[in-house]
C-alpha cells in the first residue's frame, strides 16, 4: 500500500485545485440528494459522497484530451473534466438543459468534447471499451491515455479479466482504477471474492504491478495517477490501481445502507477525504480564507446550476426518436 500523504506537499495551486474538485463534487452530489428528496430527480442515482479524492486526483492529473470512462457512479469523474454542473444536474432531472437532453439519465453522463467517453451501467462493459480507446490513441500516436473507473464488485465479472489481459498484451495506454468501497450493492465484497484485495491481488495475473493506495488522500491519488499516466504515455502499458475508499451513503437512491456496521461508517466518515485535505492545507500554510473562498464559490456554483436546471423544461418529445443512427434518425426502413 502506497503510504498516506507523501513527505513533500504539492504546490499551493495544485492543492487548491484538488480541494476545489472535491468541494465541487461534494456540493453537487449533496444537492442531487436533496433534489431526489424533493422528487425532482426520478429513477435512481448513485452518489459517490466520500469517494471524491479519487475523481479529484485523476481529474487534476489528466490532460485535456485524455479519455475518461466511468460507471453509473460517475457524476464526479464527469464533473472534474470540466463538464457543466448545470448540464449534469439537468440530466439527472431529465430536463432539456441536461447533458444528454434527458436521453441518458444519471447513469449515463457523457461529454465527448471534454473527453468523458461515457458512463456505463452494465458492470464491466466499459473496461474493454476503455482499452479500445487506448488502442485507438496508440494507433493514432496521439499520446492520449484512457482512465477507467469501476468498483470492487466489478473485479469478479468476466469483462474485467478480458480487458486486463488484452490491455496488457498490447501495452495499451489505459489506467484501470478500482474504487474499492468495500461493497457491491449491499453485499460486502469480502463475502464473494476469493482474495483480500479484489483488484490488486489480481494484478499479477496480467503481469502488472500490485498497487493499493489510500483513495481518501487526494495527494496520494494525484501522485499515483501521475505516475501511471506517465508510464502509459511513454508506451509502457497499462496500470491497475486499487484505491481504498468508502461511500458515505447507500448504494443508490433507494438504499439507506443499513447493512453496514455503524462503527464502520463512523470510522470512514472520520476519514472523509475533504476533511483530511482541508486540515492538511491549513497545516501546509494555505490561508483559511482561500479555502473558504473555494467552498463559497462552489456553493454559489451549485445554487446557480440547480436553479438553471429547475428552470429548464422537459425535453421536446421528438428527441426520443432521434439519434439512433448517425443520420440523426431512428428510421429502420425506407
Amino acid at each position, binding site marked *: 500500500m502506497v503510504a498516506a500523504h507523501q513527505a513533500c506537499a504539492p504546490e499551493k495551486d495544485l492543492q487548491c485545485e484538488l480541494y476545489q474538485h472535491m468541494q465541487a463534487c461534494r456540493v453537487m452530489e449533496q444537492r442531487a440528494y436533496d433534489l431526489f428528496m424533493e422528487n425532482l430527480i426520478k*429513477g435512481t442515482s448513485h452518489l459517490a459522497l466520500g469517494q471524491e479524492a479519487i475523481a479529484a486526483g485523476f481529474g487534476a492529473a489528466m490532460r485535456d484530451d485524455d479519455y475518461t470512462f466511468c460507471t453509473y457512479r460517475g457524476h464526479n469523474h464527469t464533473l472534474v473534466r470540466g463538464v457543466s454542473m448545470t448540464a449534469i444536474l439537468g440530466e439527472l432531472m431529465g430536463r432539456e438543459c441536461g447533458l444528454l437532453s434527458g436521453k441518458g439519465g444519471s447513469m449515463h453522463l457523457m461529454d465527448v468534447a471534454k473527453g468523458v467517453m461515457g458512463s456505463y451501467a452494465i458492470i*464491466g462493459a466499459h473496461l474493454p471499451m476503455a482499452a479500445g480507446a487506448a488502442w485507438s490513441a496508440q494507433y493514432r500516436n496521439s499520446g492520449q491515455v484512457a482512465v477507467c473507473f469501476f468498483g470492487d464488485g466489478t473485479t469478479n465479472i468476466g469483462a474485467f479479466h478480458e480487458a486486463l489481459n488484452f490491455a496488457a498484451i498490447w501495452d495499451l495506454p489505459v489506467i484501470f482504477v478500482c474504487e474499492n468501497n468495500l461493497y457491491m450493492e449491499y453485499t460486502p465484497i469480502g463475502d464473494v471474492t476469493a482474495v483480500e484485495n479484489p483488484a490488486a491481488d489480481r494484478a499479477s495475473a496480467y503481469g502488472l504491478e500490485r498497487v493499493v493506495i489510500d483513495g481518501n488522500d487526494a495527494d496520494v491519488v494525484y501522485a499515483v495517477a501521475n505516475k501511471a499516466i506517465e508510464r502509459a504515455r511513454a508506451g509502457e502499458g497499462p496500470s491497475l490501481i486499487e484505491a481504498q475508499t468508502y461511500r458515505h451513503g447507500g448504494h443508490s437512491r433507494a438504499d439507506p445502507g443499513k447493512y453496514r456496521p455503524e462503527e464502520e461508517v463512523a470510522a470512514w466518515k472520520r476519514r472523509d477525504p475533504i476533511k483530511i485535505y482541508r486540515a492538511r492545507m491549513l497545516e501546509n500554510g494555505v490561508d483559511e480564507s482561500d479555502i473558504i473562498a473555494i467552498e463559497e464559490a462552489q456553493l454559489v456554483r451549485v445554487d446557480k446550476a440547480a436553479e438553471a436546471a429547475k428552470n429548464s423544461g*422537459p425535453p421536446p418529445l421528438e428527441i*426520443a426518436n432521434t439519434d439512433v443512427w448517425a443520420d440523426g434518425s431512428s428510421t429502420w426502413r425506407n
Partner: protein
Amino acid sequence: MAQLSYREAVAAGIAQEMRRDESVLFIGEDIAAAGGVFKTTEGLLDEFGPLRVRDTPISEQAILGAVAGAAMTGLRPIAEIMFSDFFAVCWDIVVNQIAKTRFMSDGQCSFPLVIKSGNGGGARFGAQHSQSIENWAMAVPGLKVVAPSNAADLKGLMAASIRDPDPVLFFEQKSLYGTKCDVPDGELLIPLGEAAVAREGTDVTIVALAAMVPRALKAAETLQSEHGISAEIVDLRTLVPLDTKTIFKSVSKTGRLVTVEENPRLCGWGAEISSLVSEELFWDLDGPILRVTTPHIPLPSADALEDAVLPSPARIVENVLKLAD
C-alpha cells in the same frame, strides 16, 4: 383470499415450492441478506437458510453456469438476473448451453431451472436498465418464457415454473411490482401455456403481455365507453409454450387483431403472433393486423420521454380505431 403485491407474490411463489421440495435452491446478487434490490425476495433467507438462499458475486455467467450444472445433476435451482438487460452478459449460458444441451444430448439430461429477472421500463432507469427482452427469449429454441401481468398469476406461474422440467425464463415486469390483487390462499399453480381472457369482447382482439395487459384493459374501457367498440383482451401469460388456441378462438370471433408489446418493434413477439394468424387464420380476418410496440429505439431516461415512447392506452385506442375505419 389475501391481497398481495406483485412484488410480494415473487417470494410467495418461491417459498411455496421451497417448502415442498428440498432440491429447490435460489442464488443471485443481493437476493439473500438484502432481500433483493426490488425487495422481491425478503424473508427467504430467514426461512430457508444460507445453504438454500445465497448471495453471489457479480458474475452472471457463473450464476447461470452454476444453476445449469446443478439442474443437470438433480437439483431444481432458481437464479436471479437482477435486470433483464443483464442477460446480455450471460446470454451464452442461456442460449447455447441451457437451451441446447438437452437436445444435443438426445434427451439424456434436463434443465429444470428458473431464471427470474426484472424486465421492462417505466422506472426512468435509462436504456441499460429498462429494456423488455421477452422477445429475445422467445426466439431461442429450448427455453420456456413466462411473463405474468398480476400478482396471482405471478405466484401460480412461478410455482409452476419451478416444478417444470424445462428451463424457464421468468420475467417480472418492474413497472408492476407495486400493483396488488387478490391471491388465493394455499397452494397455487397455474399451468404454463395457458393464456387468459382478461376481458371478453366481440369486435377486436387485443393480445397483450405483462405490463401491457392493464394498459390494454384501460384502452378497452375507453373503446367501449367512447366508441362503442367491444375489445377482447387476451393476456398471453406465457410466450412459450404459446397458447395459439385461445388467440385463434378470439380472433375467429372478432376478425380483428391488435398486439401490444413493450419490446422494441423489430422481431417482437407480436410479429410472431401476427404471422401465425395471417398464416393460419387469414380467411377469418376482417382487416389488417396491427402491432403497437415501443418504437425501435433504446429507452430514454427522462420521465417525459419514457412516457412518450412506451405503448399507452391512448396509442392502443388509436390503433384499434384505425381498424374500425
